[in-house]
């Protein structure tokens, strides 16, 4: 059996826009979505910036009975899924609904709900909370609500591998279709960690920047957090063709690895094994890859390790490819980041537009690759890969090809 997997729908909401198209447009313009963080008690935080979803009114999208059950991370997932399903035209009920599943990534789950309710009981001394706190905050809430919205009865669960959650989720969705277990999947990831407790925790690690995300630039000083979601419809090629669906791109490879070394410091070897594994799974030569969407967090530890790993895997071909970090624009969406970043790969393959690494000020000799500094570029790309390297040393790399 030689089943191929394609993408037939995409949806997103994040600091760059409230749809996949708006996100890509912003990426193509090199626009920065990072700005002042607007949350309760922000004055008690040392970090005052984030890639926050602005101009968003939940009541415009959901009814009161829904909102009592939907944490912000669930809302983002549902909106992205809605857009992806509308584009795809997939009707789950028209086929065997057990052959469509949902696998989404998130790291923190319903953190808004958790933060608000901890505040109520600890700070305000209340002894009663809303009855739906548990179903709102659980990590699989977004996946469950997406599954219910479309009647997808196949394999469905949530993946939580910190910053690699979305890539692990999408990689598994790819495997499920390729193996014949299912015919279509809704997959991607969602995160909404921009709450007082969430940012306070990150401050403690001292890896956050107070002024911006400048991946690969010698002047970088840390990461900036974002929020949002992206969801895709993955579908078996013949299944998509049979119903005349528009094919956006093909997913051709996936690999995972574990550093098995340190809980926060990344390993060059672990990253390289995941990248090399994805190329092998997709039967690619290094010179086939035109674009890499980098993990590119803007921390010294990540950026140097990642560039080293790319050199290890690609050898001389490393100097011919383009690699950019769109986190410079939308921030680090943690468990949702790989999903939003897949849009940059799709834009490269489908539109021939390479998203830039903005905020790039000064070369770093340890990151001496073509990082597409500051301005998007037109280029024909046949194959793109997307890197995600999580805290805890868990790595997941996807490979995509232009639509057949």
């Amino acid at each position, binding site marked *: 059996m030689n089943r191929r997997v394609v993408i037939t729908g995409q949806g997103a909401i994040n600091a760059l826009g409230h749809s996949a198209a708006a996100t890509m447009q912003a990426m193509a313009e090199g626009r920065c979505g990072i700005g002042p963080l607007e949350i309760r008690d922000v004055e008690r935080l040392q970090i005052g910036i984030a890639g926050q979803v602005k101009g968003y009114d939940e009541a415009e999208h959901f009814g009161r009975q829904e909102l009592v059950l939907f944490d912000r991370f669930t809302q983002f997932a549902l909106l992205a899924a809605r857009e992806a399903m509308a584009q795809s035209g997939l009707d789950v009920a028209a086929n065997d609904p057990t052959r469509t599943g949902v696998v989404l990534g998130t790291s923190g789950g319903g953190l808004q709900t958790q933060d608000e309710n901890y505040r109520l009981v600890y700070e305000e001394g209340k002894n009663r909370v809303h009855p739906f706190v548990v179903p709102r905050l659980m990590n699989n809430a977004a996946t469950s609500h997406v599954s219910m919205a479309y009647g997808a009865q196949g394999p469905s669960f949530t993946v939580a591998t910190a910053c690699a959650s979305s890539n692990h989720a999408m990689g598994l969705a790819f495997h499920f279709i390729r193996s014949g277990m299912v015919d279509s999947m809704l997959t991607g990831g969602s995160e909404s960690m921009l709450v007082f407790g969430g940012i306070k925790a990150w401050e403690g690690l*001292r890896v956050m920047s107070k002024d911006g995300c400048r991946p690969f630039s010698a002047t970088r000083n840390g990461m900036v957090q974002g929020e949002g979601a992206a969801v895709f419809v993955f579908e078996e090629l013949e299944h998509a063709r049979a119903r005349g669906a528009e094919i956006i791109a093909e997913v051709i490879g996936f690999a995972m690895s574990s550093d098995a070394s340190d*809980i926060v410091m990344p390993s060059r070897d672990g990253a390289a094994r995941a990248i090399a594994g994805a190329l092998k799974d997709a039967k690619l030569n290094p010179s086939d890859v035109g674009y890499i969407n980098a993990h590119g967090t803007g921390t010294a530890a990540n950026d140097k390790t990642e560039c080293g790993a790319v050199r290890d895997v690609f050898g001389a071909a490393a100097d011919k490819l383009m690699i950019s970090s769109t986190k410079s624009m939308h921030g680090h969406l943690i468990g949702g980041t790989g999903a939003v970043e897949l849009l940059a790969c799709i834009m490269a393959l489908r539109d021939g537009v390479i998203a830039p690494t903005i905020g790039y000020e000064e070369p770093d000799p340890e990151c001496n690759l073509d990082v597409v500094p500051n301005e998007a570029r037109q280029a024909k790309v046949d194959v793109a890969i997307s890197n995600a390297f999580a805290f805890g040393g868990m790595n997941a790399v996807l490979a995509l090809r232009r639509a057949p």
Partner: protein
Amino acid sequence: MAVNVKDKIVEIIAEQAILQPSDVAMDATLEDLGVDSLGLVEAIFAIEEAFDIQVPFNANDPTESDFDVSNIGAMIKAVETLVAAKG
């Protein structure tokens, strides 16, 4: 009465290094003592709590921070300055 800065910092570093305070030399580096990057971040948190100060330290690039962590003596001096500035 202010806490003795030197003794407190030696105690914090010794705890991270799993050593007796008497084994923490002023010219020792964190590396000499076996304190890694996570240990340093935790030690700085303990220092901030002990002296009620903000230590300007970015784990992203420790050598570029305004806080000198080149050896234990330098860290003590830096903390003494921060404590004095607090008034």
